[in-house]
C-alpha cells in the first residue's frame, strides 16, 4: 500500500519552490515573495508617510481628500486593488511588467494602512513636545521633522514589522495575475503532478508560517524592548 502522504514531490521541487528558475531564469518562489514584500514595504513606508502627514494637515482642502483616499483604499479588498491596477496601468502608461503592477498595487494598498500607523504614532507623542518645540521658534514642518517624527517612528517600529508580515501574506494574491511567487509556484507544481495537493499546500503554508512567525516574534520582542526603554 502506498503511504498516505508523499513528500518526494516537495524534495524533488525544493529549489523551484525556493527560487524558481533563478539564476538561469527569472526569480520565483520564496525569493520572489520576499522581493515583492520588501520592495512594497519600502515604497508603502514613504507612501504611508505622505498620506499620513497629509491626513493630519491643518488645511481642510488637503486633509479631506487624503482621508477620502485612505478610506477608499481601506474599504476595498486587496484583490480589487490588484484588478484595478492590472486594468488601469496598461491603459494609462502602456505595457508594464506584472511584477511591477503587483508591487504598485501592494504599495498603494499598504500605504493606506501605514498612514494610520503613522498618524497613531504622531498622536502618541505628548502635546507638550509640540508646544515646547514651537515656543523655541521652530516652524511647524521643523517641529514635525526634527522633534515629533524621530520619536514617533521609533514607537512605530513594531507596527511596521506587523505590516510587513501582512505584506508577506498579501503577496500570495500576486498569483492571480500570474506572478510566479510561492503560491503560484505551488499551483504550477500541483497542476503538473496532480496527485499531491495536500502535501504541496501544507508545505507552502508551513513556509509562510515560518517567515511570518519569525517577524511576528521580532515585532513582539521589539515591543517589549521599546516599552522597557521608555520606562527607564
Amino acid at each position, binding site marked *: 500500500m502506498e503511504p*498516505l*502522504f508523499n513528500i518526494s514531490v516537495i524534495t524533488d521541487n525544493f529549489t523551484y519552490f525556493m527560487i524558481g528558475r533563478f539564476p538561469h531564469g527569472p526569480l520565483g518562489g520564496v525569493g520572489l515573495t520576499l522581493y515583492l514584500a520588501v520592495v512594497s514595504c519600502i515604497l508603502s513606508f514613504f507612501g504611508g508617510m505622505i498620506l499620513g502627514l497629509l491626513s493630519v494637515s491643518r488645511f481642510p482642502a488637503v486633509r479631506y481628500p487624503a482621508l477620502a483616499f485612505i478610506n*477608499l483604499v*481601506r*474599504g*476595498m*479588498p*486587496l*484583490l*480589487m486593488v490588484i*484588478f*484595478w491596477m492590472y*486594468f488601469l496601468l496598461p*491603459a*494609462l502608461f502602456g505595457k508594464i511588467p506584472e511584477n511591477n503592477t503587483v508591487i504598485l498595487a501592494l504599495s498603494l494598498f499598504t500605504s493606506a494602512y501605514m498612514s*494610520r500607523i503613522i498618524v497613531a504614532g504622531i498622536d502618541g507623542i505628548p502635546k507638550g513636545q509640540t508646544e515646547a518645540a514651537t515656543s523655541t521658534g521652530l516652524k511647524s514642518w521643523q517641529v514635525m521633522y526634527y522633534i515629533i517624527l524621530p520619536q514617533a517612528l521609533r514607537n512605530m517600529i513594531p507596527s511596521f514589522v506587523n505590516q510587513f*508580515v501582512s505584506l*508577506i*501574506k*498579501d*503577496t*500570495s*494574491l500576486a*498569483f*492571480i495575475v500570474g506572478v510566479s511567487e510561492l*503560491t503560484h509556484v*505551488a*499551483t504550477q507544481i*500541483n497542476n503538473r503532478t496532480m496527485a499531491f*495537493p*495536500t*502535501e*504541496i*499546500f*501544507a508545505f*507552502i*503554508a508551513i513556509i*509562510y*508560517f515560518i517567515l*511570518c*512567525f519569525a517577524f*511576528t516574534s521580532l515585532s513582539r520582542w521589539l515591543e517589549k524592548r521599546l516599552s522597557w526603554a521608555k520606562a527607564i
Partner: protein
Amino acid sequence: MLNYTFDWSIITSGQYFDWLLAGLITTLKLSTISIILAFLLGLLIAVMRMAHSKPVRWFALAYLEFFRNTPLLVQIFFWYFGSYKILPAFINDWLNKTGFEFAAAAIALTIYTSAFIAEDIRSGVLSIPKEQMEAARSAGFSYLRSMQYIILPQAVRITIPPLVNQFLNLAKNSSLAMTIGVMEMTYQARQVESYTFKGFEAFTAATVVYLVLSIVITALVNLYNEKVLNVHKAT
C-alpha cells in the same frame, strides 16, 4: 484610455446587473455563514487559550499562531485542493454534493477569521476586572460556568465592535473565494469585464458596493460605541 467610451447602462440594468447582484448576495451569504461559525469557533479557542490545563492552552496558542501567520489564499487552496486526504469519506461525499467551492471557501474563511476573533474575545475577557472571576468562583461556580454566566456575557458586549469589524474584513476577504470559482462580487465583476470589455464600469460597481458596505458597517460600530458603550469614536 482616450478612446474609451463609458457605458454605465450595462451595469445598471439587464443581465450584467443581475450577475453583479447575484455576486453581492453570494458575498453576503458567504460572509454571514462564516462570521457565525467563526464566532463560535473563536469563542471556543479563546476559552481554551485561557484554560488551566497546559496542553489545552498550548494547542489554542499553536492554532492561533498558525492560522494568523499563513495567507488566507493558501488556506483556501489547502481546503479546496488538499482536504480530501484528511477528511473522512462521508464528509467528502457530503461536500461534493453541496457544492464544494462554497464549502471550502466557508471552511477556510471560518478558520482564518476565528483566530482573529479569539484574540478579540480574549482581550475583551482580559478587560473584565479579575475580581469578577474571583467573586464567581467563591460563589461556587466552576471555571467554565463562571466564564459562561459571568465573564463572557460582559466580554462579548465589549467585543461587539471588533467583531463587526471582523465581519467587514471577512466580506473583503471573501473576494479571495473567486480563485476557486465561487461566484461572489469580485468574480462577477471580473466576469462582466471579460464579457463586455467594460472593466472600468464593472470594477467601479464592485468597488462602490464594497465601500457602501464598509461605510454602513463603520457607521453602525460608531453608533454602538457611542450609544451602548459610551465611548467616543476612535478615528
